[in-house]
């Protein structure tokens, strides 16, 4: 039986006053794209850096391709590619020089020029790192992760701060890597990114896994396919509409109701508001997303944590 691409059991890492990772179990299968989703400070980066062998956990077991970091560090370094959250490569070196430098560290690897073409960086081949745009810098970081022809690609928030175009370009790079049979483990706090890229997602909060599954499974767990958001004047108390929804959360003066059928729930809601003599100020609806899963699990929104 072949081992999983990445596996960890009961991972723990505590800093002075924070339990960054608090008993985490994960298993990433070969060829899979697995996402760690969670707000800032949830422990995603600590987790991925433990898996990458850059941080030593207080306790717990990590296996990458059936090997562990203490016995097989060099072999593992040859087989995985890493993009850290905020590495700045040398400003004065050109794109090609940087990729060639990273290539020299690996026994086997890809041809720098081929790789740059694949990542649409060939036009910037001789441009210095300092002159690149954010998206180009990020693609170069991924190029450095791919240059050793890895089996597993670790990406820590690969598209944070990028414009939509650059984000799409990066997603394509990940998709192409998967076509060659590669495994991807990424962290993100973008729901859209997780839904688009990942086969399975673990939602992480306070260093713990609070949910796990495919994006569709996670959304199905809501048992509510739609979301109604509304504000009213005056505000209504929760018990007035508790009966017409599966669950609700409040953000400042805006109520968010998880419902199964909009056709049933919206008229009921309007009737309740009218009966209470209140005035509807805003009303919107959308199909449930991972964002809503996160809200229902934590009572908080991803962005404003």
């Amino acid at each position, binding site marked *: 039986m072949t081992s999983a691409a990445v596996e960890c059991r009961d991972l723990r890492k505590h800093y002075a006053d924070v339990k960054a990772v608090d008993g985490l179990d994960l298993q990433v299968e070969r060829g899979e794209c697995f996402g760690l989703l969670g707000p800032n400070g949830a422990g995603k980066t600590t987790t991925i850096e433990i898996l990458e062998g850059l941080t030593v956990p207080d306790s717990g077991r990590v296996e990458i391709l059936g090997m562990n970091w203490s016995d097989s560090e060099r072999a593992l*370094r040859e087989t995985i590619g890493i993009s850290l959250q905020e590495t700045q490569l040398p400003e004065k070196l050109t794109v090609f020089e940087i990729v060639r430098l990273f290539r*020299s560290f690996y026994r086997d690897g890809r041809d720098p020029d081929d790789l740059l073409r694949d990542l649409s960086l060939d036009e910037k081949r001789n441009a210095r790192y300092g002159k690149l745009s954010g998206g180009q810098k990020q693609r170069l970081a991924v190029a450095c992760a791919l240059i050793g022809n890895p089996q597993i690609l670790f990406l820590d928030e690969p598209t944070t701060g990028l414009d939509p175009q650059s984000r799409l370009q990066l997603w394509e790079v990940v998709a192409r890597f998967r076509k060659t049979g590669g495994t991807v483990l990424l962290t993100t706090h973008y729901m859209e990114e997780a839904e688009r890229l990942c086969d399975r997602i673990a939602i992480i909060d306070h260093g713990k896994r609070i949910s796990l599954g495919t994006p569709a499974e996670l959304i199905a767990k809501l048992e509510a396919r739609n979301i109604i958001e509304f504000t009213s004047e005056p505000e209504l108390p929760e018990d007035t509409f508790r009966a017409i929804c599966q669950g609700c959360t409040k953000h400042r003066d805006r109520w968010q109701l998880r419902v199964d059928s909009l056709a049933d729930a919206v008229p009921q809601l309007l009737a309740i508001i009218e009966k209470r003599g209140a005035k509807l100020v805003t009303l919107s609806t959308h199909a449930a997303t991972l964002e809503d899963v996160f809200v229902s699990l934590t009572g908080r929104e991803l962005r404003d944590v």
Partner: protein
Amino acid sequence: MSEKPRPPILELVVVRTKEFLRETEAMFWVFGFPLLLALALGFAFRAKAPDKIPIGVVAGPHAQEHAAALAKSPVLLPRVYSVEEGRNALRLGRISLLVDDGPTFRFDPTRPDSRTARIEADDALEAAAGRRDVLHPHEEKVTQQGSRYIDFLMPGLVGMNLMSTGMWGMGFAIVNARMRKLLKRLVATPMRKSHYILSFFLGRMIWLTLEVVVLVLFGWLVFGVRVNGSIALLTLVCLVGGYGFSGLGLLLASRVKTIEAISGLMNLVMVPMWICSGVFFSYERFPDAVKPLIRALPLTALNDALRAVINDAAGFPQVMMPIIVLAAWGIVGFAIGIRIFKWQ
């Protein structure tokens, strides 16, 4: 089709060198600054006929007579002052000696120029009063190459430069890479950590050779400062010096997280050596008790060895001690620095 990748250590050295070449400011500090310093100091202290010493004569019945007698001295430049002006000028150091009508000599015996002025003035007044000299010693004036200030200064500047570039070359670049999380990214590859540190050291040695060649050539062409000893020995001294300071630079940079912290730390270590290690003036003037301490400093060892080879044509036995001191600093610096080095 694709070229075979170069060995990582070579690639690292090439990249270091390119980065440095593209850093215009660093180039100035390594090459421009020491040359400017040598030029400025070399001209300021160039060998020339000493200026006459300005002295004052207090206005009075004999003032003109004294002034005329004093003006005959080849080293004195007398001027007549009122009592108050004269005392002020003496206090402010504008004149080195004040001659009262008596005559009385008023001067500060701790100032060498004042002592010279006193002897010369005494001589001139006595001669004017009719003293007969009987001995008439013969004079032979010697201003020799090798004994000028610039001859003393050039090796000191070479030493100082090797220290600054060695320490900064290691320290600044390493802390910068750590701050940018580049070190962390590099240890996430199969790169060998020893290769990374070795590449800094090798890069340093390449630049060090260029620096020394430029400075020594400059000293020779502009000021006629010759290397009297063997070039091979000079090379050895410079390489060991570069090794010593690279080790010290690595040690300082091994855990520091910010550029501000490393700058402070570097200055803390380097400034005392600029002062104590005989760059601009000999450390012989320091009390005997602290001299062994001063000699144990790496810059003192390097300067002593450089002067021995460049000025005094010393052979290996004479510079063995300083070479051992430098090598020891390098060994200790690298040994501890690598052990406590923080990659993240």
